[in-house]
């Protein structure tokens, strides 16, 4: 390059370079700033609130699993008193593990059947809904920034890749988990109102359900999202991210479902150990997932994108 200046003797002066302990990597991330992570999360959630075409179907999904199906089934058993249906379901209760059978409350077949359905049958509901919603949000979150061109803004901002990742993670967890908590509350009310009178009063949530919602479900949700966010950072389009994340989340839903069912059947301390193991796995998976968010990926210029 030829450089011309009016006075060739004039020498450019650059401030002396500051030494940095960090190696070059294009991310240049220093200390974690939680405030920025929450800002990223809050802004993503604001956009989600504006996206009625997204949250209306998701709310319908939650309502369907937590309110409509349980209400119809439990009312059919406890109020309508369809003797044949009750008898058939009562027979199936005999296949439940002994531990679970001992937990059954209620003197009447309607009461026992209603209790079994409320406590054991709907376990997958608490797993399917949050995982489905959070996966849908998470799959679009990073690739979406790239597709809309807003990744350029984030890449040039002082926000670190880790802060962006954590922000995106929070923004993906919240819709699924909040839907679950709200749905779970509605479900509890429905169960207590329909089955409660048959078994001598309000009984739900049981200890196992608390364990599942607070101890088992969150780590499985985080494991799932750590994989989905990694995908979202690496694929070319939102459509590809959603397809691929479906493949990831399906086996995880099945694992979570089986584990949740086991917890509800009263596996006792095993559930606590299982939850602890899931938390460890989630933390490892999230720690590894942080690396998937880079500025070059936000810009869409990383190799493979």
């Amino acid at each position, binding site marked *: 390059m030829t450089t011309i200046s009016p006075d060739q003797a004039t020498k450019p*002066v*650059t401030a002396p*370079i500051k030494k940095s302990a960090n190696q070059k990597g294009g991310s240049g*991330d220093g200390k974690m700033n939680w405030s920025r992570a929450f800002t990223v999360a809050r*802004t993503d959630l604001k956009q989600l609130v504006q996206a009625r075409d997204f949250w209306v179907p998701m709310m319908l999904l939650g309502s369907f699993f937590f309110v409509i199906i349980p209400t119809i089934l439990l009312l059919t058993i406890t109020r309508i008193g369809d003797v044949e249906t009750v008898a058939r379901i009562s027979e199936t209760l005999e296949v439940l593990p002994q531990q679970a059978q001992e937990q059954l409350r209620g003197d009447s077949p309607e009461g026992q059947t209603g209790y079994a359905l409320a406590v054991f049958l709907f376990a997958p509901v608490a797993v399917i809904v949050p995982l489905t919603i959070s996966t849908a949000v998470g799959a679009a979150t990073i690739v979406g920034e790239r597709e809309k061109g807003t990744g350029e803004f984030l890449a040039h*901002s*002082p926000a670190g890749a880790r802060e962006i990742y954590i922000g995106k993670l929070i923004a993906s967890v919240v819709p699924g988990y909040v839907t679950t908590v709200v749905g779970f509350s509605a479900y509890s009310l429905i169960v207590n109102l329909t089955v409660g009178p048959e078994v001598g009063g309000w009984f739900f949530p049981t200890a196992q359900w608390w364990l599942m919602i607070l101890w088992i479900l969150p780590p499985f949700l985080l494991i799932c999202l750590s994989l989905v966010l990694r995908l979202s950072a690496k694929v070319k389009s939102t459509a590809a991210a959603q397809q691929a994340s479906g493949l990831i989340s399906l086996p995880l839903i099945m694992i979570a479902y089986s584990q949740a069912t086991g917890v509800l059947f009263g596996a006792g301390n095993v559930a606590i150990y299982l939850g602890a193991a899931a938390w460890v796995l989630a933390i490892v998976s999230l720690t590894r997932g942080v690396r998937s968010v880079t500025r070059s990926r936000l810009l869409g210029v990383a190799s493979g994108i």
Partner: protein
Amino acid sequence: MDRESENPVAESQGNQARELVVDVSGVDRWFGDVQALTNLSIEVPKGSITVLLGPNGAGKTTAIRMITGALAPDNGTSRVFGMDPATADGEEVRARCGVVSAKPSLYDRLNGWDNLRYAAELYGLGRGKAADARIEEAAATFGIDAALDHQVGGYSTGMKTRLALSRSILHDPDLLLLDEPTSGLDPESALAVLDLIRQMTGQGRTVLMCTHLLLEAEGLADEIVVMQHGTSLLSGRPDDLATRYWPQPIVRLSAESGADLDGLANASGVVTYERSEETATLGLQSLDHVPDLVAAAVAGGARVTSTVPFVPTLEDLYFAVRRDHGSTIDEIPPPGGSSGRPSRETASTQA
């Protein structure tokens, strides 16, 4: 903010030194098998408007990404405010930069307020009344404050650009990096934006702007960097570069019969002579010779139709640089600006 007082190096050395805000040296950057930047060097003096000129794909956007540390160079060094933006110092560098990318990079589902609040929080302005006042002030600077309540998805291209510009100055950055900032704007808005860019350097900010619109850079650029194929071909002050390419004054004489002008080739004061049909381009020792040359031409039987002093524009310079570096683009005109398109200066001095 008194930005001048932050320049101890320049102050201590007076005119003999200029502090560089950006000093990119010998940078290479590959994307897979494609080399986007090749031995790129850019120097941006403090308080200046430096314009990166180049065709599409010249690497201007990649250069800006390198400067903020959004991308790390594969080879070479990049220093901004004396720091390496590709390291942990990148956070500080980016906090002191305001960027407007080629596409406005706005969140269409959010309104103007929320877009700017997002930036305000990420750049450390926080939330609350003080931040909102700053947002309003920045939006008013670019005349977009009245539309802040509306969802950005409904904005016109010009409104989005104005909002993006407002966002870039929210945190009072020391360095503004503008990638085609007037892209998509109507001429009035584009002029207003260029005027505001000029004002910002008046306030002590440094501006690095990319454009392929030469007229836009004309009169705005303190320094230019001509880029092609990811490398910087030439850089410096436009006047100095023009003097280098056209060291002597040039005048163009036209006559009804161009051949009648050929006698001027050996006239006193003429350094170079070149004729194309009815127009002769003369390099002179001094413009003082013009009246004598016109008189000589008339005396020689020429019916002179126009006498135009040639003042090279940025466009002339740009094409001259690119031609010198082996560009094969057909439309690049020959030296002396005989492109058939009169420059702004020459058009106004036609006889």
